[in-house]
């Protein structure tokens, strides 16, 4: 087995609260467009947080990517976002659908969080409770199993390598990309479609609402709700959507003349073990710092060379803790500290879909040479001001050459992932 193959990103697909499709998403990021709106059903069901980031997916857009039968059958939003992002990434990579092709060197890792808590599930449970199980049909299980997106995508792509679906809460998306990167790097696969998605609605968001972790002070001002790193951050705004990336062995990508958005230089996935301050819902900072350091070490770059941190940064009291972990892990002079941005300031927290959507955003920023601004910071959190200069956290989009991005996500269960991207040069 040959080791240390170079791995590049050649395709992107995204369904996000502020834009559907790669080009619209890049435009939305540059323009700092919020995708957060008031959702009437959340008020009707007495949620404290009545705002969220729901993608707008037109029938026309669905039909441009989904085969007719899938468009008719799919009603789980997590599955729809997943299939749309996966198919867009596939086509964006210049690849075609060939129903006669079987490719043992292609794999899929499309993860999810709580696919079975999408709002499409409610009417199904109503059927069961009414004794009408027969009406569930064949699409209930295939859309509620967590491997649903991978399975549906594979029906179109014919992958014969590893086809699986990770689930690591808010860390799922970045973890999926790192797993795909590791398979290609180690020579076990040549091409991987990686991503993650999360559905929407009162069930999943109600469960978070009950934990009292959502933003409840902006129901009348939805676009202001998600404000990571702010002195007034008051909880995260839930979101939905999906993101996908085609990862490829460099030689394979070059041989077919593929467009390369970025190279993946390294990545790490670890856990804090729910020890040393870590718990189901809080991170073990020592492990977070180790995850970041390990990823940088594997990438073989200096901390000083990192241009941008794309943080997890959810608009909760954990933001100052996260940034302190970045400061400790990078251990660079203040002047050398990278820029920091939080895509969640525009799209909210898309739970298991977050990492993939934000990673697509990183690839677009690297390829498009810009750092999107952070929306809604009127005043930085005082604990952040103590450790990071204000100018490192831009409130307007900056056009700048980006060479290296560090992207991280952290999830319930005390799990961490960090990936390092570099602008591609042969």
């Amino acid at each position: 087995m040959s080791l240390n193959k170079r791995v590049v990103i050649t395709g992107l697909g995204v369904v996000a609260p502020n834009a559907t499709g790669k080009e619209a998403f890049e435009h939305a990021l540059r323009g700092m467009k919020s995708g957060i709106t008031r959702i009437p059903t959340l008020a009707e069901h007495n949620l404290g947080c009545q705002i969220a980031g729901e993608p707008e997916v037109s029938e026309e857009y669905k039909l441009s990517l989904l085969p007719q039968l899938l468009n008719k059958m799919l009603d789980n939003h997590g599955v729809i976002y997943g299939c749309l992002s996966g198919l867009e990434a596939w086509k964006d990579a210049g690849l075609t659908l060939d129903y006669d092709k079987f490719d043992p060197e292609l794999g899929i890792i499309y993860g999810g969080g709580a696919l079975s808590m999408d709002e499409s599930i409610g009417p199904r449970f109503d059927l069961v409770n009414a004794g009408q199980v027969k009406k569930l049909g064949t699409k209930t299980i295939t859309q509620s199993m967590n491997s649903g997106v991978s399975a549906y995508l594979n029906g179109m792509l014919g992958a014969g390598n590893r086809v699986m679906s990770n689930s690591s809460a808010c860390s799922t998306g970045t973890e999926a990309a790192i797993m795909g990167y590791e398979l290609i790097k180690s020579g076990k696969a040549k091409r991987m479609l990686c991503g993650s998605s999360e559905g929407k609605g009162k069930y999943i968001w109600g469960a978070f609402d009950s934990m009292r972790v959502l933003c409840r002070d902006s129901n009348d001002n939805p676009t202001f709700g998600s404000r990571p790193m702010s002195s007034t951050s008051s909880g995260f705004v839930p979101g939905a959507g999906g993101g996908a990336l085609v990862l490829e062995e460099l030689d394979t990508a070059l041989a077919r003349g593929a467009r390369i958005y970025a190279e993946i230089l390294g990545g790490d996935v670890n856990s804090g073990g729910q020890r040393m301050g870590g718990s189901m819902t809080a991170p073990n900072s020592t492990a977070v710092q180790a995850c970041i350091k390990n990823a940088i070490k594997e990438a073989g770059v200096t901390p000083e060379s990192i241009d941008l941190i794309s943080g997890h940064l959810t608009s909760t009291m954990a933001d100052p803790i996260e940034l302190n972990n970045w400061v400790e892990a990078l251990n660079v002079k203040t002047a050398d500290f990278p820029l920091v941005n939080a895509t969640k300031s525009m799209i909210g927290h898309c739970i298991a879909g977050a990492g993939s959507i934000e990673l697509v955003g990183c690839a677009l920023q690297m390829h498009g040479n810009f750092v999107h601004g952070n929306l809604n910071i009127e005043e930085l959190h005082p604990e952040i001001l103590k450790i990071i200069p204000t100018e490192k956290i831009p409130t307007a989009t900056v056009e700048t050459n980006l060479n290296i991005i560090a992207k991280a996500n952290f999830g319930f269960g005390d799990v961490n992932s960090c990936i390092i991207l570099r602008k591609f040069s042969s």
Partner: protein
Amino acid sequence: MTKDEIKAEIKGVIEPYVMQKELLDNLSDEIQLIGDLKINSAHVVDIVLDIEEKYDITIDDESINKMNTIGEAIEVILEKMKKD
């Protein structure tokens, strides 16, 4: 409804489940749903649900097992419509 009217409508019901659309061109009574139209066997369940909804009838498991061809499917629909 006549047999021919149902046949015309049933083509619309099964069309999404048929990947090779040209197989729908000559829909004779003897055409088999799985064997000839290459419909995924799991989707026969969904076709039955679509038919139940369209004609507001209930098709029991025994009848589903009889619906192997287009002609047999039409027979079952006609029979259930009479009863309901």
